[in-house]
């Protein structure tokens, strides 16, 4: 009779853990999707930043490229 009670408890515990694992699996799936989205968002921003760094002149510097060089005559 002790064994029967033990088995009942084990069985119930197993059911509980199974449900819990399923919940965690779903959570991991959701997080993973979120992370993939964040990652691509990050990639986008990085490539934009890289492009702007390469193509758009840093406005913090004096815009010497736009002015005519002083002519020497």
């Amino acid at each position, binding site marked *: 009779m002790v*064994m*029967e009670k033990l088995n009942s408890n*084990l069985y119930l515990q197993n059911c509980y853990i199974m449900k819990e694992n399923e919940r965690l699996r779903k959570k991991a799936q959701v997080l993973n999707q*979120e*992370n993939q989205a964040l990652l691509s968002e*990050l990639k986008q921003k990085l490539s934009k930043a890289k492009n702007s760094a390469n193509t758009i002149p840093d406005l913090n510097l004096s815009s010497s490229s736009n002015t005519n060089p002083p002519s020497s005559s």
Partner: protein
Amino acid sequence: MAMAVAQHRVSSSGSSINKHFDAAGKYVRYTAEQVEALERVYAECPKPSSLRRQQLIRECPILSNVDPKQIKVWFQNRRCRDKQRKESSRLQTVNKKLSAMNKLLMEENDRLQKQVSQLVCENGYMKQQLHTTLAEFLSKATGTAVDWVQMPGMKPGPDSVGIFAISQSCRGVAARACGLVSLEPTKV
């Protein structure tokens, strides 16, 4: 008293069923030879008929002093003991299976919890990265000085962002990126 003995069903190592009332009314044990003879018949026939039991007594002189009713009771108890043993064995088997299942489930649970923790950490890290990268982009485009929120161990500036971009295709992105910029994931 006799009835109580007849109804007595205990599955100890056979000692309880191997007692009977003798002619003098004393409660005595079956001898080893008697038990042996009885067990032999039980092995070939667990539920012998009345006729078979009578034949047994005739064939075994060592059982001749035993009341036929006691023989009948012996077989009843013997069958009962078998049932109890089978049930006990079954319960043990079930217990083993449930315990093994339990162990596997706990291990899986542990693994999943770690996985979720890792993902939450990466998630948080990337969100932070998005904010700082955006600020950096803005500072270059508009020439506006942006206050860097200094994180412990993190190097501000394009280097850290560039390193992150390199490792993005690998597994464990955040952890590796964190390592490269001297940032501990757990402290993020």
